[in-house]
């Protein structure tokens, strides 16, 4: 009998091996698509067999089973595929260090020819070591749909060179996407994104990779306080800060400091570093009242300076800055900042929610209530809609007291 803890431990260790084994196969000259399929099959078999018969060398076991699958697949292939086999023996150039496995594969999965949803799914399978079933569960779609999405993505990659240095910015964006979609569901995608980002920071010196890791850690640290026992949203200013994960905050701050230490005249901090700095300021305040808003505003100034036309290119940053302006210069100044966004953001619930917050900050409760109600009508998640309806009802009730 193998108890649950051992089983879970095995799965974690197993998943960590996936990118290393896959990178090994691809470097040996195997086709990325075929190798990824073969390894997925080996992974499913391992999940079935290992609890009863743990292998002595798990990595070698996976590589052997995946290779056997590849050989089987090749044997049953037609002439069309035999032509592709010609390139089989060619070892592709690319990173050769073992530590670069995750990075190498992330670049494969985050190919710019793929749609973001496909990049995410493929990265979770090839680098995260998740099964198609687990990824489907995480995104609340049927397994067949996710399998189709993944195989379509892989068809897109077929025949493309995967040995080019990829665009790190795309990889970072994909990881952040994995993080932001990953707060619900059976599989902890947010934790997965953090794990992948940590691997990435070992493989590249780029400070933005560390900025992203820091941003995720500093936000993730507040997760335990974000919902109450009834699963209701608790906004930052009302969270029980005692529930925040101080270890994650400490790690986030350390990682951020090491990234910021590399800034120079020519290389100012990138957007993830700046966003992490803002998150760190919130995490650092013992209470909402003690938040150092002038510093938050200063970082937002840096954030909006990263794009030529922030209102159009980065409206989320302008909206975040408007909140900081409201806290530093007064609610009216903050509201004036949001006015600039009405054209691009006026139909988004967040724009109305921020205006509700600013009206409340300025003591105009009727205006706050109607802004929250406008936000609720535009909300795209039940939790947010319910939260905004509550905010509206609360503001109206306070106004009548």
């Amino acid at each position, binding site marked *: 009998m193998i108890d649950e803890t051992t089983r879970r431990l095995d799965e974690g260790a197993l998943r960590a091996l996936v990118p290393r084994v896959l990178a090994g196969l691809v470097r040996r000259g195997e086709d990325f698509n075929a190798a990824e399929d073969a390894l997925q099959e080996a992974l499913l078999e391992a999940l079935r067999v290992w609890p009863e018969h743990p292998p002595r060398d798990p990595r070698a076991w996976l590589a052997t089973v995946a290779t056997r699958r590849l050989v089987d697949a090749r044997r049953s292939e037609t002439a069309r595929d035999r032509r592709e086999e010609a390139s089989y023996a060619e070892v592709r150039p690319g990173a050769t260090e073992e530590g670069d496995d995750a990075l190498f594969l992330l670049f494969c999965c985050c190919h710019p020819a793929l749609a973001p949803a496909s990049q995410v799914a493929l990265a979770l399978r090839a680098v995260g070591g998740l099964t198609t079933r687990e990824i489907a569960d995480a995104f609340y779609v049927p397994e067949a749909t996710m399998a189709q999405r993944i195989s379509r993505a892989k068809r897109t990659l077929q025949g493309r060179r995967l040995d080019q240095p990829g665009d790190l910015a795309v990889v970072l964006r994909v990881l952040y996407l994995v993080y932001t979609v990953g707060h619900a569901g059976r599989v902890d995608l947010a934790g997965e994104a953090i794990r992948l980002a940590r691997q990435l920071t070992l493989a590249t010196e780029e400070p933005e990779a560390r900025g992203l890791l820091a941003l995720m850690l500093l936000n993730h640290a507040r997760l335990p306080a974000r919902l109450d026992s*009834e699963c209701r949203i608790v906004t930052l200013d009302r969270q029980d800060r005692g529930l925040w994960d101080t270890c994650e905050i400490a790690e986030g701050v350390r990682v951020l400091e090491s990234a910021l230490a590399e800034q120079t005249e020519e290389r100012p901090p990138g957007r993830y570093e700046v966003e992490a700095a803002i998150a760190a300021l919130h995490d650092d305040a013992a209470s909402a009242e003690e938040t150092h808003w002038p510093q938050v505003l200063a970082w937002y100034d840096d954030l909006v300076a990263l794009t030529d036309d922030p209102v159009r290119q980065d409206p989320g940053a302008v909206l975040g800055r408007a909140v900081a302006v409201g806290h530093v210069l007064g609610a009216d100044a903050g509201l004036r900042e949001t006015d600039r966004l009405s054209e691009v953001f006026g139909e988004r619930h967040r724009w109305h929610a921020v205006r509700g917050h600013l009206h409340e900050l300025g003591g105009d409760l009727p205006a706050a*209530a109607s802004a*929250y*109600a406008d936000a*609720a*009508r*535009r*909300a*795209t998640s*039940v939790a947010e*809609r*319910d939260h*905004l*309806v*509550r905010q*509206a*009802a*609360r503001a*109206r*009730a306070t106004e009548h007291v």
Partner: protein
Amino acid sequence: MPKYLLLKHYRGGPEPHHPFPPMDQWAPEDVEAHMAFLKHVSELLEENGEYIDAQALTPARTWVRYGGSEADPVTSDGPLPETSDLVAGWYMIDVDSHERALELAAYVSSEPGPGGEPLYEWIDVREVMSEAPSDD
């Protein structure tokens, strides 16, 4: 066992039993009671083994149709966008009988409104066609 959709509407349907203001104008405790009741309905359905799915829809609607070859799709707000029927969400349930579906719909409709009084909201009950031909 037959499956039913219990549809809630933002607007449309028969004349309301009694008018009530939008929820953001209710007292906060009434809002809480209403939300707690809906959560309770989902839990109850799950406990009974009658639950399949529950979803909410945003009120934004776009009608769209094929625009013809090499033309963009044609979109519209529809006729009378302010008053036409608009679905807000649904429960999909798997129950023993049509009567049970009506019973559950009536229970949903008893959800508390302002002052804790039942809303008497009209629920649109629709049977889902099954894949298999019927046995009888």
